[in-house]
């Protein structure tokens, strides 16, 4: 199977590889996929408390080159977006940007799921924080 230049570029020079502190209340962590399926993506983002903008994003992926590229691209796109903007990222945009063939579309779906899972985790943390903050006040 021939890979697009963009997939090769992300595979050879993956952006934003690494991990953020998952206990940080401003960090959301999403882990999707399963080893049995051959894909696991871990995607993390940190939201700036004042501006509500995603200021950092990191990933680690177990999967084929297209899965690595999809998650690498996702971290690039997340940075600088607000949480609500980030939720609008669609897997089809990833497919188009990376010219993924039909058999690799599930990689882009997984990346979208990872974004949603990370934001979901972040929101959950924020919500559970609120009452604590009030009692302190």
């Amino acid at each position, binding site marked *: 199977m021939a890979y697009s230049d963009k997939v090769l570029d992300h*595979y050879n020079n993956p952006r934003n590889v690494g991990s953020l502190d998952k206990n940080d209340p401003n960090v959301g962590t999403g882990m999707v996929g399963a*080893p049995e399926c051959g894909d696991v*993506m871990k995607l993390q983002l940190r939201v700036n408390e004042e501006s509500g903008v995603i200021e950092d994003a990191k990933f680690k*992926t177990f999967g*084929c*080159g297209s899965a690595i590229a999809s998650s690498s691209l996702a971290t690039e796109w997340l940075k600088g977006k607000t949480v609500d903007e980030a939720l609008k990222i669609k897997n089809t945009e990833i497919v188009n940007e990376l010219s993924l063939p039909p058999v690799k579309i599930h990689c882009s779906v997984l990346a979208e799921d990872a974004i949603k899972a990370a934001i979901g985790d972040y929101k959950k943390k924020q919500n559970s924080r609120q009452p604590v903050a009030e009692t302190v006040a």
Partner: protein
Amino acid sequence: MKTPIYFDNHATTPVDPRVLQAMLPYFTEKFGNAASRNHAFGWDSEQAVDKARKQVADLIGATSKEIVFTSGATESNNLAIKGVAEMYAEKGNHIITAATEHKAVLDTCKKLEKHGYKVTYLALQQNGLVDLDQLRAAITDKTILVSIMYANNEIGVLQPIAEIGKICKEKGVLFHTDGVQAVGKVPVNVIKDNIDLMSITAHKIYGPKGVGALYVRRKGPRVQLTAQMDGGGHERGMRSGTLNTPGIVGLGEAAAICQAEMAEESRRMAYLRDKLKSRLESELDEVFINGSMEHRLPNNLNMSFAYVEGESLLMGINDIAVSSGSACTSATLEPSYVLKALGVGDDLAHTSIRFGLGRFNTEAEVDYVAARVIEVVRKLRDLSPLYEMAKEGIDISKVEWVAEPTH
């Protein structure tokens, strides 16, 4: 050293230049039809076919009359299994095979099931070997054929063929083996191994593609087959069709070279394979060998690199030709059924790589491949959330994964 490096010799092998030289005259000046009985062109061709028949027979301890030339092992497997099923239909309708057979055997058996035959697919032991007691227990008075491959194409595991053949003989059941990966690589003898039918192909032993043979025993017992191809009655009526003289000459020459050089070549293959194995094992943690190391072709290594998905590894070592048991290398989204049959979990099956060494590989290539694989596995493990979790002491098998429903 030239790249890309070819380490996929279970898929196919290059034609040995000596084989090509032997073939060339039979394309041009010696182009006769081996069935033309009344002129020199035909005689030349027939003579060449006879010589090749003897060369193939000699390699496996058979006689010339027991060799039927075909278009390759897929045809040989089809002819053996369907030919026996049809010929012995009155005796019974039960066939026994194993879950790790090549698709040319499995799909042939599935086709027969649609026509009312019963097929038992034996499970394999974890080391890839057939359980002989299980085989014995599976044979009924309706069983007409057992088909178990000599060596597996993915994991290189050698079955206890002589014992299987002995059991079949005791029970009066015919025994077919797909000998494609074993013939020419390890000593195969149809008498000692109690084999009644055996499939062979040229392109795995440095011969050309598109030509193979089926060994059909003539004595003790005399095996009969219903032809699957009708026509001029070539090959003693078992396989009609004008003989592919250049291809057959190539198969014969390839067989003769294997016979002459097998002892030295298999030692060299084992040395190179073991070097590759020990380099990978000493420099990488959490690597696992799939299948028995003891009962194995000398040129095969099948290894799982935990936490590194196979296709991404292949992508990183793109100047090396190997193959992976990962789903991502095929369109099926299902990892290797062979590894699955051994009880290798899907997670590890996705991380497996098959290295198949061959006659033309060098020690320098082994060193290069080892270094590249080590480098890329390390890089991908830095990228792998699973490796990170494993290093943190998390048991990956106990994690509840949120897989997408499309999987």
